[in-house]
Each structure stands twice: as C-alpha cells, then as structure tokens.
C-alpha cells in the first residue's frame, strides 16, 4: 500500500474541513482489503499494477544493460533468457492486460454512468484478489528458478525445459480469470446500470472502449485458460496433444495461444483509445469529431480481432491459403484504427487547445501509435513478414503500440483523473518535463530497433554479431532516459498526494458525469441522479477562477433530484 498510505495521510490532515470522501470514509487496511467500493478497488489495483510495471521495467533496464555489448555484459545467457521472459510475462499478464480497465476503468466507469457502483461489487473484489493470487504464483516462479520460455511458452520447448514453467503458467491462468470477471462485470454494468436518458449513443466514448474490451476479455480469455491448463497437463501428465513424439502437433499450441493473445493486444489498445477520445475532446475544448464512427470502430476492432491470430505464424509452415486469409483479415483491423486516429486529429480543428500534461500524452500517443500501427502493416504483409518475423522489427513494433500506445495513454488518463481520484493537483511543470523525457527516451530506445530488425537482428538474442552493436547501444542509452522519466513521474505524483493543491470538482472542464461530483468523490459517488445529455457538449461549462475549476452555467440542467439529500 506504499502509495495509499500517504493518500490517506494527505486527507487525514484535513478531515475537519473536507466532507467525508471514499478515501477517509473508513480507516485501516482491512477497510480497504474487504471494500466493495469500486473506487477503492480501483486504487488498490492501481498500486498493485504500477508496482508490477515497475518490476517489469527494472527487468527491462537489466535486459538493455546486458545488450550494451555482444556476449556477456552483466549476466549469462540463461539469466538473460529468464530476464526477457519475466519482463514480457510481467508486463503483459500483470501490467498491461488488467492495466487500464482494472484501474481507471474501475474507478471511472460507474462515475461516468452516474451509478453508485459496478453491478457486481463482490465479483469486482474477487477479481482483485484473484489478481493478487495470480501475481503471487507468477512472481514466485522467479524464486523457484524463473522461466526461460519467452512469454509465448511455445511447445515443445516449454514442455521440455527444466525451468519453473508451471508456476508461471498457473499464475497466468489465474490472472486470466481475474480479467474475465472484470470484463463480465463491466458488460453487465454498462447494460443494466445506465441512468435515465443515457442511451448507447450518449455514452462517453471511454465506456464504448471499455465495453468493447470487455467483450474480448470474456470471449478470448477462457481459451488462454484451457491452453495453459493443457500445457501444464502436458508437462505433468505427458498428455501429448502438443508432442510430435506422441503424434501431437506443436504448432497447434501456437494456434491456441494466439487465438487468445492476438485479441489480447486489442484488450491492451482499446482502453487506451477510449482514454484518447476523452482527452482529445476535453483539451481541444471541442465536441469529439465523428462520435459514432469512433464508437463503432471500437466494436469493429473487438470483433475483427478474433479473426487474425494466424499472422503470428506466417513462417510456422502453415498452409499458404491459411496465410493468405490471415494476412487479408489482418489488414481489415487497420481500417477502424485509422478511422479513430483521423477523427482525433479532426477534433483539434478550430478548437482551443490546452497543452496540459494529459494532452501532452495524448499528442505523443498520436505520434507513437501511428508509427507502431503503421509498422504493423509491414508485418501483416506476407512477403515482408517472412523477413521481419522474430526480428527486432517486431520488438520495436509492439513496443511502439504497447508502450507508445497503451502506456502513454494510461499515463495521460492517470494524470487526467488523478485529481478526481486523490483530490490533489500535481505540478504541471514537472508533468511536462517528465512527458518530454519519456517521449524522447522512448524514441531513442525503440526506433533504432526498427532499423536493426530489418537489417536482420533476431529477437531473444543474448549475443549478437558486431554490426548491430551501435544500434543496441543507442537503444540502451534511450532506456535509461526513459527510466529517469518514470522516476520523475513517480516522484511528483507521490509528492502531490501530500503537498499538492486541493483539486476542484472539475479541473479540466470535462462534461462527463464523473466531474459532477466532488474530488475525491463521496463513498456513494453522487448526491443526486442525472438526466444524461451529450457527454461532449462543453458549451454550458465555464471556468471559475475562484475555485480554479469549471462549473456548469446551470448546475440543475442535468440533475433529476435537487442536491443535498445526505444520508
């Protein structure tokens, strides 16, 4: 609870002035561990998930340091193999998959709906503790000798290696169910908890994104579950479905794995796009452009994402016709993504653009995700992928989309809702400095990887031929800048919890419902109910210098019950 305690302390000092909010409503760790309040669960998730991000990041920096020179720099080959496996597994299963939905989603979704909580609060808490148990399994694998299979656990390597595959896969298995429950919860909440007047097409786009994500979570994750179970069975019982010696087929495993793990990459990006739609509108001071197209493209991406998994296996020897179909379908996903990007850019047109920290991240998202996505085209095309598959070009691609896309948007959203979550403002100056550091460091780290990749540098290489040395060294230096950036972020965010100025209810001038309640919100979220209107109609908001925040010209315009019915 490293972060939470100062958060509590921060509000403690001011109990007498501030009304009760969800942070100070009740005390003690137990009141957190067994809370059913989606806001507290969201905060607990936030702490847990940022910690795993930190862990994964530390692995990453160790990786990069090892790659400073060919052959051994600071660790031997086996350690390196375990290192990138842990890095990948932690970043994917512990950090980015639950990432945005479980933290910001949990916190914001019911608020945006004007609801008191998610539909199934107990399930919500259960999914958090499942995450914890899964995390313990996964991390414990490090203690019992770590895993060296790569995060993809390809058979037959994963069924024959001597390392702790089982505890890691069981961990991922449990984490999968945590993710299923979160998705299930959000689907039910969005279907059943929408207030009067909030039709599907009056929902903030954030909810459309989270909803599409939830669809993938519930439909794809079970298959990962059974796949990992089969893998464990293969190791313990010697089943043989994936074992050629027993007439099984190792490539079948790859189909199983990617049937989940491709849709999973859209589990990662859809919530990020969801955040983008909010940021672009609010900080351009304009109504989002092409609402319906953005909304539908989220759903389109979710559905299409189930049809393209084979593009990870173009060189696995699968039939040419299969490759053709998967390649064609892969490109179909690119279109809805393109639509979103263009609509975001169009939203800025004739706006009044404020370069606050969240917007800085939104802009770097546009920059980085475009690169990441466009390089997906090189990989989706059959002939080029034959050359680029399993090279650093792929590594660069997925860092540009996962980091340049998801993590950047996550940071944007974190800064956007931070005042709402903890009732404090962070330092804008440090905010922009860190955003710049991260942007520069990131490009330094990963752009050179595109070049060395297409030049033929294979991935998962502990040792490399000399002509790649300079690319690797640039990349490593970049990663240090990046790391520095994150420590700055961690620094001023933590600082703001204790020293930051009080946040007004609506610091940015957003029109979605979460800004209608105090920051931080009371335990039951709202003191009244709402007649939801257009979530991007920013016109009846005005800035009030007194409270350093925005207020509605007519506060009653969207309220159903008059304010003040306290319990």
């Amino acid at each position, binding site marked *: 609870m490293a972060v939470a305690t100062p958060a509590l302390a921060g509000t403690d000092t001011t109990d007498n002035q501030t009304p009760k909010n969800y942070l100070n409503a009740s005390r003690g760790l137990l009141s957190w561990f067994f809370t059913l309040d989606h806001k507290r669960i969201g905060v607990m998730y936030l702490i847990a998930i940022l910690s795993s991000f930190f862990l994964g990041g530390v692995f990453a920096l160790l990786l990069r340091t090892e790659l400073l020179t060919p052959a051994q720099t600071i660790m031997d080959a086996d350690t390196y193999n375990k290192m990138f496996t842990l890095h990948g597994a932690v970043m994917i299963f512990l950090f980015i998959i639950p990432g945005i939905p479980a933290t910001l989603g949990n916190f914001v979704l019911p608020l945006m709906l004007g609801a008191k909580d998610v539909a199934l609060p107990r399930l919500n808490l259960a999914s958090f503790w499942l995450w914890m148990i899964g995390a313990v399994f996964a991390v414990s694998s490090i203690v019992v000798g770590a895993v060296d299979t790569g995060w993809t656990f390809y058979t037959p390597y994963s069924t024959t290696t001597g390392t702790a595959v089982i505890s890691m896969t069981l961990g991922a298995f449990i984490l999968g169910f945590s993710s299923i429950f979160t998705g299930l919860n959000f689907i039910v909440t969005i279907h059943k908890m929408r207030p009067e007047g909030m039709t599907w097409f009056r929902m903030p786009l954030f909810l459309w994104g989270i909803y599409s994500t939830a669809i993938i979570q519930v439909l794809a994750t079970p298959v990962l579950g059974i796949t990992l179970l089969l893998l464990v069975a293969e190791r313990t019982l010697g089943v043989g479905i994936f074992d050629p010696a027993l*007439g099984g087929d190792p490539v079948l495993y790859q189909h199983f794995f990617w049937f989940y793990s491709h849709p999973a990459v859209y589990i990662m990006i859809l919530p990020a796009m969801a955040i983008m739609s909010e940021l672009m509108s609010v900080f351009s001071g304009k109504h989002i452009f092409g609402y319906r197209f953005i909304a539908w493209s989220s759903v389109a991406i979710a559905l299409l994402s189930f049809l393209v998994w084979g593009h990870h296996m173009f060189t696995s020897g699968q039939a040419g016709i299969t490759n053709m179909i998967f390649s064609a379908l892969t490109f179909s996903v690119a279109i809805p993504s393109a639509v979103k990007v263009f609509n975001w850019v169009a939203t800025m047109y004739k706006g009044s653009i404020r370069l606050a920290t969240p917007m800085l991240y939104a802009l770097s998202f546009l920059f980085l995700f475009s690169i990441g996505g466009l390089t997906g085209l090189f990989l989706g095309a059959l002939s080029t992928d034959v050359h680029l598959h399993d090279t650093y070009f792929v590594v660069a691609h997925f860092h540009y989309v996962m980091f340049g896309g998801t993590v950047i948007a996550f940071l944007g959203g974190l800064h956007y809702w931070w005042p709402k979550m903890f009732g404090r403002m962070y330092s804008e100056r440090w905010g922009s400095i860190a955003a710049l550091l991260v942007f520069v460091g990131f490009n330094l780290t990963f752009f050179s990887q595109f070049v060395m990749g297409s030049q033929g540098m294979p991935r998962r290489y502990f040792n490399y031929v000399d002509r790649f040395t300079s690319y690797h060294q640039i990349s490593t230096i970049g990663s240090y800048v990046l790391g520095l950036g994150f420590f700055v972020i961690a620094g001023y965010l933590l600082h703001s919890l204790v020293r930051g100025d009080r946040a007004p209810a609506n610091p940015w001038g957003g029109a979605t419902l979460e800004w209608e309640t105090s920051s931080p919100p009371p335990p039951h979220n709202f003191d009244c109910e709402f007649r939801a209107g257009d979530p991007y109609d920013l016109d009846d908001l005005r800035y009030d210098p007194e409270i350093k925040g925005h207020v509605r010209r007519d506060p009653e315009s969207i309220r159903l019950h008059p304010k003040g019915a306290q319990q």
Partner: protein
Amino acid sequence: MTGHAHAQDPNVAHHFENADQQYQSAKLGMWVFLATEILFFGGLFCAYAVYRANHPEIFVFGHHFLDKSLGALNTVILICSSFTIAWAVRAAQLKQIRLLKVLLALTLACAAGFLSVKYVEYSHKWKHGLLWASRYSPEAHHGEQRDHAEETGAESAASGETTESSPEAVQEGLERSKIAPAASGPAGLAVADERPGEEIVAEPKNAQVYFSIYFLLTGLHGIHVLGGMGAMAWLLSLARRGAFDTGHFTKVDMVALYWHLVDLIWIYLFLLLYLID
C-alpha cells in the same frame, strides 16, 4: 445515500434501483459466465477434434474401453437432476419452501450419484492401468514397443528417402507429425491385445493419448459437478434460513442455469467419448 423506497428491501443491494434491475444484472452476468465456460470447454473439444482428425484409429480403439451402459446411466441421472432443479426454481418463485428444499436435496443426490458412477468407471480404468500417458501401462511390453518406434522414426527422418514424402508435408500445414507415428503407421505397430473380458482389438501407437484426453475432459467436468454440488448445498442452507420466503428466487435461478450447462456439456462428452467411432 439517497432515500429510495427500496432501501428497506433486504434482498436488493444498495447500488441497485430495484429488485428487477438486480435480477436482470445477475441473469446477464450468469449468461456471460456460461459463455466463457462454453469457450473454456470449447478449447478442449477443439484439441480433441484436431487430434482425432489426425489419429482416428486411436479413438476407435480407445472408446471400446468405456462402459457405454454406465455412461448412459450417468446421462439419465444428470437429465433428471436438470429437471428437478428446474422445478426447484418454480418452487422458489411460488414460495413453496418445503418443496424447494426437497427438490434441491434430490438434485444434490443426483449429482452425488453421478460422481459415484464416475468413481466406479475411474477405478476400473485404474485397475487395468488405462490411465493418462505417463501412467498408462496396460501391458509390460508396450514400453519397448514405443522405444523401437522412436528409433525407426529417427532413422527415416534423416535418410534421404523420406524427402519424397515432404512436398505434401509442407502443403498440408497443420498435418500429423511425420517422424514418430508416420514412420511406422499404426497398423505396422499393432500388437494383439489379450486383455481378459475385452474383445481382441489391435492397439494403435499412442493409444494412451485417448485416455489422457478422456481424463482431462471428464475430470474438468467432474470438478464443475463438484462446484455445482457446493452451490446447491449453499442454496439449501439459505432455504433453511428462510432466504427465499419472500419469493426472492434469483440465486436458485442462477445455480439452475449453471447446472443445465454442466448437464449439457456431459451430453457432449458422452457423445464424443463413449458413442461415436
């Protein structure tokens, strides 16, 4: 919180507007959950299908060792239990608490019956060593038999002549493994099988895989049955504490839905493992 009419109703959680909204939410949640369950088993069925497509002989061979009558018996038991729990829902809606308890007890009994039959089947397999791969040992000499196959496989793998077979090997994409099984086709390896009481069937290579799959599928299903039993015991205790006196039947309804799925899945297992050859 805002003083709503329902604030008193003990069956409605504070964050719901009314009982109906809560019921609808629970129902939708349950259906989505069932969807994930189907996909979960779907994965296994898929593995079954692929392996069967590649090695039909193994399944034809294996399914002779399952007792169809016991399988059928279990199917009947589960269908009955589905019926009783459906009726239990009705009872809960009509606040017929005694009937509800009886029906829940009956369903629980069926489930127990199902598991005991499975126990009989399992123990029979255990006796004959018809277990998953690593524990599979119906006859002593199978071991050597298999090693021998590996060698011949390895040889032909390296020798030039196998390259003839390679062209289609590549076209077919997801085709059966070439080295071990193909190098010496099932027939080549067949050994007469004098298991007492069974009709004489030639045992194809890797027959143990059939039993691995059998235990995976039935085992996973068994676990779901146990889960269902737990849920029903929980309902019974709730009923005893009078939780359903007010006609609040959501929980019963949810468990019933789940139980129907468990039943449905079994019917598929019965088909795939016991019947078709």
